[in-house]
């Protein structure tokens, strides 16, 4: 094993933070790659992160249909994770997702960008609050 790139320390800390939460939480890096989700999120998704591995956040989000409480479809770019990633600002939304098992679940989702030293953008954290 020769010298290799370490994940940014802020991402390492975000992962550890998420690991200790009972709230479903995922972490994506600055490229928009999902690099971790916690055990609580594994319960929602039904698969361990270790089985899934790193993947584009869009691929992950695409597995769930999203609609407003009024039943209107929500385009990917308006979902909190993409807002935090694309616009680098916090975002919060109360909506309904239909997961792979076909069940509708009402969620509140908070996503926020991570800025490290000198405002370097290093990724986003997305938290799913189950009602």
């Amino acid at each position, binding site marked *: *094993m*020769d*010298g*290799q*790139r*370490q*994940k*940014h*320390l802020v991402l*390492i*800390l975000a*992962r*550890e933070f998420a*690991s200790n939460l009972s709230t479903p939480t995922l972490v994506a890096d600055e490229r928009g790659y999902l690099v971790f989700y916690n055990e609580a999120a594994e319960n929602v998704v039904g698969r361990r992160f270790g089985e899934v591995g790193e993947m584009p956040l869009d691929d992950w989000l695409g597995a769930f249909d999203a609609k407003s409480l009024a039943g209107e479809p929500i385009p990917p770019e308006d979902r909190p994770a993409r807002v935090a990633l694309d616009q680098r600002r916090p975002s919060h939304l109360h909506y309904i997702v239909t997961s792979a098992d076909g069940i509708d679940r009402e969620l509140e989702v908070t996503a926020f960008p991570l800025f*490290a*030293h*000198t405002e370097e953008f290093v990724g986003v954290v997305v938290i799913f609050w189950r009602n």
Partner: protein
Amino acid sequence: MPTQVKIWGCRGSVPTPGPETVGYGGNTSCVEIALTDDAALVLDAGTGIRELGFELARRGTRRIYLFLTHLHLDHLEGLRFFAPLWSPDVTLDVWGPCSPLFSLRERIVRAFSPPLFPLDFRDVPAEVRFHDLPGERWESHGLSVSADLVLHPGPTLGYRVETGASSLAYLPDHEPVLAGITGRSADWISGGGVAAGAHVVLHDAQYLDEEYEAKIGWGHSSVGDAVAFYRAVEAGRLVLFHHEPQRSDRALESIGARAQELAGPGEVPPVVAREGMVFELA
């Protein structure tokens, strides 16, 4: 030709002069990596850099590259008494962590001003240039130095020095266990990037395992966690560094003996850093 590495200070937190620490030394962190008589590479400016400064003056060294892990006093306080700094013939390049608000220069200048010091930084006769890190890899004299932010209170760096054929990781103040070591790939371990596969790792081992529980979050590792880290990053040799100030020579000898027992099959036993210790990188 092998590159020589010399430890000029390996005590943690505060200098500890006295008869109880003569063997392992009481000076705080400073490591020299030999370049030529004209140039020197130095890691950290704890009080160990004071003696090194006299040696560099004796050699006539005029070009010095100093890499600071962080600005806690035990890694900086020797700089004010570093003889080459007070020579107009010397050029000193200093790398180290900026903070979210202040550059490295602004942060260091604070330590060079009243009431902490009688003189101001503008009184320093050497030509001093500051470089904020993390940043680009530095390369010169056949060596390269890279840095990553690592877990320790406040902005703190770990360094990797590569000679081409060999490598040294320097993590004197580091508490990676806070974000996990065991079961993680090296890229998810604090310091994993600079230490992965390094031939030698100088790593924080300030506490005994039984002391650590009362010191969680203080920024330092236990001997056991240092060993776990070196195994996780598959480093070649572990040098236990940044000794607890209250640790006497006798206590460090005891740690050295215990460290021998910690080595697994096929592993090179960890050694306890000692002031004046010299080793070579191929």
